Protein backbone atom coordinates (compact mmCIF):
# COMPACT_ATOMS: atom_id res chain seq x y z
CA UNK A 1 0.00 0.00 0.00
CA UNK A 2 1.29 3.45 -0.83
CA UNK A 3 0.48 6.56 1.12
CA UNK A 4 -1.31 9.13 -1.03
CA UNK A 5 0.82 12.17 -1.75
CA UNK A 6 -0.69 15.65 -1.45
CA UNK A 7 -1.47 17.23 -4.82
CA UNK A 8 1.41 19.50 -5.83
CA UNK A 9 1.55 20.80 -9.39
CA UNK A 10 5.16 21.98 -8.93
CA UNK A 11 8.01 19.57 -8.40
CA UNK A 12 10.62 20.28 -5.72
CA UNK A 13 12.95 23.06 -6.85
CA UNK A 14 10.55 24.38 -9.43
CA UNK A 15 9.02 27.32 -7.63
CA UNK A 16 7.37 29.51 -10.23
CA UNK A 17 8.12 33.18 -10.65
CA UNK A 18 5.88 35.22 -12.95
CA UNK A 19 7.77 36.96 -15.71
CA UNK A 20 6.75 39.74 -18.06
CA UNK A 21 5.41 37.33 -20.64
CA UNK A 22 3.01 35.79 -18.17
CA UNK A 23 4.51 32.29 -18.35
CA UNK A 24 6.15 30.95 -15.19
CA UNK A 25 9.93 30.68 -15.16
CA UNK A 26 11.85 28.38 -12.90
CA UNK A 27 13.49 29.94 -9.83
CA UNK A 28 15.38 26.81 -8.82
CA UNK A 29 16.94 23.84 -10.52
CA UNK A 30 18.81 23.43 -13.81
CA UNK A 31 17.96 25.96 -16.53
CA UNK A 32 16.54 28.40 -13.99
CA UNK A 33 17.27 31.99 -12.93
CA UNK A 34 19.77 30.71 -10.38
CA UNK A 35 21.73 28.79 -13.01
CA UNK A 36 21.94 31.97 -15.15
CA UNK A 37 23.11 33.84 -12.03
CA UNK A 38 25.67 31.11 -11.48
CA UNK A 39 27.21 31.74 -14.92
CA UNK A 40 27.36 35.50 -14.25
CA UNK A 41 28.97 34.89 -10.85
CA UNK A 42 31.45 32.42 -12.37
CA UNK A 43 32.60 35.03 -14.92
CA UNK A 44 32.83 37.76 -12.26
CA UNK A 45 34.72 35.41 -9.94
CA UNK A 46 37.30 34.54 -12.59
CA UNK A 47 37.76 38.24 -13.44
CA UNK A 48 38.19 39.16 -9.77
CA UNK A 49 40.57 36.26 -9.30
CA UNK A 50 42.70 37.53 -12.19
CA UNK A 51 42.63 41.15 -10.94
CA UNK A 52 43.55 40.09 -7.40
CA UNK A 53 46.34 37.89 -8.70
CA UNK A 54 47.79 40.67 -10.85
CA UNK A 55 47.56 43.14 -7.94
CA UNK A 56 49.29 40.66 -5.65
CA UNK A 57 52.12 40.30 -8.17
CA UNK A 58 52.34 44.11 -8.36
CA UNK A 59 52.60 44.29 -4.55
CA UNK A 60 55.53 41.89 -4.68
CA UNK A 61 57.08 43.83 -7.58
CA UNK A 62 56.58 47.12 -5.71
CA UNK A 63 58.98 45.93 -3.02
CA UNK A 64 61.81 45.74 -5.54
CA UNK A 65 61.21 48.35 -8.27
CA UNK A 66 63.17 51.63 -7.96
CA UNK A 67 61.00 54.70 -7.30
CA UNK A 68 63.35 57.65 -7.79
CA UNK A 69 61.79 60.97 -8.85
CA UNK A 70 58.31 59.56 -9.46
CA UNK A 71 55.38 61.75 -8.51
CA UNK A 72 51.66 61.08 -8.40
CA UNK A 73 48.81 63.55 -8.55
CA UNK A 74 45.93 63.23 -6.16
CA UNK A 75 43.04 65.06 -7.75
CA UNK A 76 39.66 66.03 -6.41
CA UNK A 77 36.88 68.56 -7.01
CA UNK A 78 38.98 71.44 -5.72
CA UNK A 79 42.07 70.69 -7.77
CA UNK A 80 45.06 68.40 -7.53
CA UNK A 81 48.14 67.87 -5.43
CA UNK A 82 51.55 66.50 -6.40
CA UNK A 83 52.99 63.89 -4.03
CA UNK A 84 56.30 62.04 -4.23
CA UNK A 85 55.58 58.35 -4.75
CA UNK A 86 57.28 56.60 -1.86
CA UNK A 87 57.48 52.85 -1.49
CA UNK A 88 55.22 52.98 1.58
CA UNK A 89 52.60 54.92 -0.37
CA UNK A 90 52.79 52.52 -3.31
CA UNK A 91 52.53 49.48 -1.06
CA UNK A 92 49.62 51.08 0.79
CA UNK A 93 47.75 51.77 -2.45
CA UNK A 94 48.40 48.38 -3.99
CA UNK A 95 47.74 46.56 -0.72
CA UNK A 96 44.44 48.37 -0.24
CA UNK A 97 43.37 47.55 -3.81
CA UNK A 98 44.38 43.90 -3.39
CA UNK A 99 42.45 43.64 -0.12
CA UNK A 100 39.43 45.31 -1.76
CA UNK A 101 39.30 42.97 -4.75
CA UNK A 102 40.31 39.97 -2.63
CA UNK A 103 37.44 40.69 -0.25
CA UNK A 104 34.95 40.78 -3.09
CA UNK A 105 36.48 37.59 -4.47
CA UNK A 106 35.82 35.88 -1.11
CA UNK A 107 32.24 37.17 -1.17
CA UNK A 108 31.75 35.85 -4.70
CA UNK A 109 33.24 32.50 -3.73
CA UNK A 110 30.64 32.09 -0.97
CA UNK A 111 27.87 33.38 -3.25
CA UNK A 112 28.81 30.85 -5.93
CA UNK A 113 28.57 28.03 -3.41
CA UNK A 114 25.15 29.28 -2.25
CA UNK A 115 23.97 29.50 -5.85
CA UNK A 116 25.28 25.98 -6.48
CA UNK A 117 23.03 24.66 -3.69
CA UNK A 118 20.17 26.70 -5.18
CA UNK A 119 20.63 25.16 -8.64
CA UNK A 120 20.53 21.74 -6.98
CA UNK A 121 17.18 22.78 -5.44
CA UNK A 122 18.30 22.52 -1.83
CA UNK A 123 19.38 25.96 -0.55
CA UNK A 124 18.37 25.63 3.11
CA UNK A 125 21.52 23.97 4.35
CA UNK A 126 23.41 24.84 7.55
CA UNK A 127 26.49 25.50 5.36
CA UNK A 128 24.65 28.35 3.64
CA UNK A 129 24.02 30.04 7.00
CA UNK A 130 27.77 29.99 7.65
CA UNK A 131 28.46 31.27 4.11
CA UNK A 132 26.02 34.16 4.48
CA UNK A 133 27.60 35.14 7.80
CA UNK A 134 31.01 35.05 6.12
CA UNK A 135 29.68 37.29 3.34
CA UNK A 136 28.30 39.75 5.91
CA UNK A 137 31.55 39.80 7.83
CA UNK A 138 33.69 40.22 4.69
CA UNK A 139 31.38 42.96 3.43
CA UNK A 140 31.70 44.74 6.77
CA UNK A 141 35.51 44.48 6.72
CA UNK A 142 35.82 45.55 3.06
CA UNK A 143 33.43 48.52 3.25
CA UNK A 144 34.82 49.55 6.64
CA UNK A 145 38.33 49.27 5.24
CA UNK A 146 37.42 51.43 2.23
CA UNK A 147 35.95 54.05 4.59
CA UNK A 148 39.08 54.08 6.77
CA UNK A 149 41.43 54.15 3.76
CA UNK A 150 39.52 57.01 2.11
CA UNK A 151 39.56 58.90 5.40
CA UNK A 152 43.30 58.33 5.69
CA UNK A 153 43.93 59.60 2.16
CA UNK A 154 41.69 62.64 2.70
CA UNK A 155 43.26 63.61 6.02
CA UNK A 156 46.91 62.66 5.68
CA UNK A 157 47.89 62.27 2.04
CA UNK A 158 45.81 64.91 0.31
CA UNK A 159 44.32 67.28 2.88
CA UNK A 160 42.19 69.96 1.25
CA UNK A 161 41.94 68.06 -2.03
CA UNK A 162 39.60 65.26 -1.02
CA UNK A 163 36.68 65.68 1.34
CA UNK A 164 37.01 63.74 4.59
CA UNK A 165 34.65 60.81 5.03
CA UNK A 166 31.57 61.32 7.14
CA UNK A 167 29.63 58.77 9.13
CA UNK A 168 26.68 59.27 6.77
CA UNK A 169 28.59 57.43 4.06
CA UNK A 170 28.74 54.36 6.29
CA UNK A 171 24.95 54.07 6.46
CA UNK A 172 24.47 52.18 3.19
CA UNK A 173 27.21 49.62 3.91
CA UNK A 174 25.88 49.11 7.44
CA UNK A 175 22.40 48.46 6.04
CA UNK A 176 23.81 46.03 3.45
CA UNK A 177 25.68 44.11 6.14
CA UNK A 178 22.59 44.06 8.37
CA UNK A 179 20.46 42.72 5.50
CA UNK A 180 22.98 39.92 4.87
CA UNK A 181 23.01 38.96 8.56
CA UNK A 182 19.19 38.99 8.68
CA UNK A 183 19.17 36.76 5.58
CA UNK A 184 21.59 34.41 7.35
CA UNK A 185 19.12 34.12 10.23
CA UNK A 186 16.27 33.48 7.77
CA UNK A 187 18.34 30.70 6.22
CA UNK A 188 19.08 29.31 9.70
CA UNK A 189 15.36 29.05 10.36
CA UNK A 190 14.88 27.52 6.89
CA UNK A 191 17.59 24.95 7.62
CA UNK A 192 15.92 24.12 10.94
CA UNK A 193 12.53 23.65 9.25
CA UNK A 194 14.14 21.48 6.57
CA UNK A 195 15.70 19.31 9.27
CA UNK A 196 12.33 19.06 11.01
CA UNK A 197 10.70 18.08 7.75
CA UNK A 198 13.38 15.45 7.10
CA UNK A 199 12.74 13.89 10.51
CA UNK A 200 8.97 13.85 10.08
CA UNK A 201 8.00 10.38 8.98
Amino acid at each position, binding site marked *: *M*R*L*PLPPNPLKRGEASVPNWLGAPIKALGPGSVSSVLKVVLDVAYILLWLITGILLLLVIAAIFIPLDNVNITVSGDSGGKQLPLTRTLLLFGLGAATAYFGGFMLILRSLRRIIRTLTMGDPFQ*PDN*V*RRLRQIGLTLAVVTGGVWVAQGFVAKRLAPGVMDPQGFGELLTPIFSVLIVFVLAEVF*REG*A*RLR*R*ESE*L*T*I
Partner: protein
Amino acid sequence: MPIRVQLDRVLVERRMSLTELADRVGVTVANLSILKTGKARAVRFSTLDALCRELDCQPGDLLAHEPGPGDTIEDDGEA
Protein backbone atom coordinates in the same frame (compact mmCIF):
# COMPACT_ATOMS: atom_id res chain seq x y z
CA MET B 1 12.78 12.57 23.56
CA PRO B 2 10.12 11.53 26.12
CA ILE B 3 8.10 9.83 23.37
CA ARG B 4 9.46 6.36 22.65
CA VAL B 5 8.55 4.44 19.52
CA GLN B 6 8.04 0.75 20.23
CA LEU B 7 8.03 -0.33 16.62
CA ASP B 8 10.67 -3.03 17.16
CA ARG B 9 8.57 -4.71 19.88
CA VAL B 10 5.42 -4.72 17.72
CA LEU B 11 7.41 -6.01 14.74
CA VAL B 12 8.75 -8.93 16.81
CA GLU B 13 5.22 -9.72 18.04
CA ARG B 14 3.92 -9.72 14.46
CA ARG B 15 7.01 -11.59 13.18
CA MET B 16 7.43 -8.96 10.49
CA SER B 17 10.64 -7.47 9.15
CA LEU B 18 11.25 -3.74 8.77
CA THR B 19 11.65 -4.16 5.01
CA GLU B 20 8.29 -5.93 4.71
CA LEU B 21 6.58 -3.23 6.76
CA ALA B 22 8.23 -0.52 4.70
CA ASP B 23 6.95 -2.17 1.54
CA ARG B 24 3.42 -2.50 2.91
CA VAL B 25 3.22 1.02 4.35
CA GLY B 26 4.93 2.82 1.47
CA VAL B 27 7.61 4.45 3.62
CA THR B 28 11.28 3.90 2.87
CA VAL B 29 13.27 1.55 5.10
CA ALA B 30 15.57 4.48 5.95
CA ASN B 31 12.62 6.53 7.23
CA LEU B 32 11.19 3.59 9.17
CA SER B 33 14.61 3.05 10.66
CA ILE B 34 14.66 6.70 11.80
CA LEU B 35 11.28 6.09 13.40
CA LYS B 36 12.38 2.83 15.02
CA THR B 37 15.57 4.26 16.49
CA GLY B 38 13.71 7.20 18.01
CA LYS B 39 15.41 9.87 15.90
CA ALA B 40 12.16 11.06 14.32
CA ARG B 41 10.81 14.47 15.34
CA ALA B 42 7.21 13.84 14.33
CA VAL B 43 4.93 11.23 12.79
CA ARG B 44 2.25 12.11 10.26
CA PHE B 45 -1.24 10.88 11.04
CA SER B 46 -1.29 9.26 7.61
CA THR B 47 1.88 7.27 8.45
CA LEU B 48 0.47 6.32 11.85
CA ASP B 49 -2.77 5.24 10.18
CA ALA B 50 -0.91 3.04 7.69
CA LEU B 51 1.31 1.54 10.40
CA CYS B 52 -1.68 0.73 12.64
CA ARG B 53 -3.57 -0.79 9.70
CA GLU B 54 -0.70 -3.00 8.57
CA LEU B 55 0.36 -4.01 12.08
CA ASP B 56 -3.24 -4.34 13.28
CA CYS B 57 -2.62 -2.29 16.39
CA GLN B 58 -3.50 0.98 18.09
CA PRO B 59 -1.28 4.11 18.16
CA GLY B 60 -0.80 3.48 21.88
CA ASP B 61 0.84 0.14 21.06
CA LEU B 62 3.44 1.93 18.96
CA LEU B 63 4.11 4.97 21.14
CA ALA B 64 4.94 5.30 24.81
CA HIS B 65 5.58 8.35 26.95
CA GLU B 66 8.53 8.26 29.28
CA PRO B 67 8.82 11.33 31.55
CA GLY B 68 12.30 12.77 31.55
CA PRO B 69 14.43 15.55 30.19
CA GLY B 70 13.28 16.02 26.61
CA ASP B 71 15.12 17.95 23.95
CA THR B 72 13.51 21.05 22.57
CA ILE B 73 12.52 21.55 18.94
CA GLU B 74 15.08 24.35 18.53
CA ASP B 75 17.94 22.21 19.83
CA ASP B 76 19.01 20.34 16.73
CA GLY B 77 22.75 20.78 16.98
CA GLU B 78 23.00 23.00 13.91
CA ALA B 79 24.07 26.58 13.49
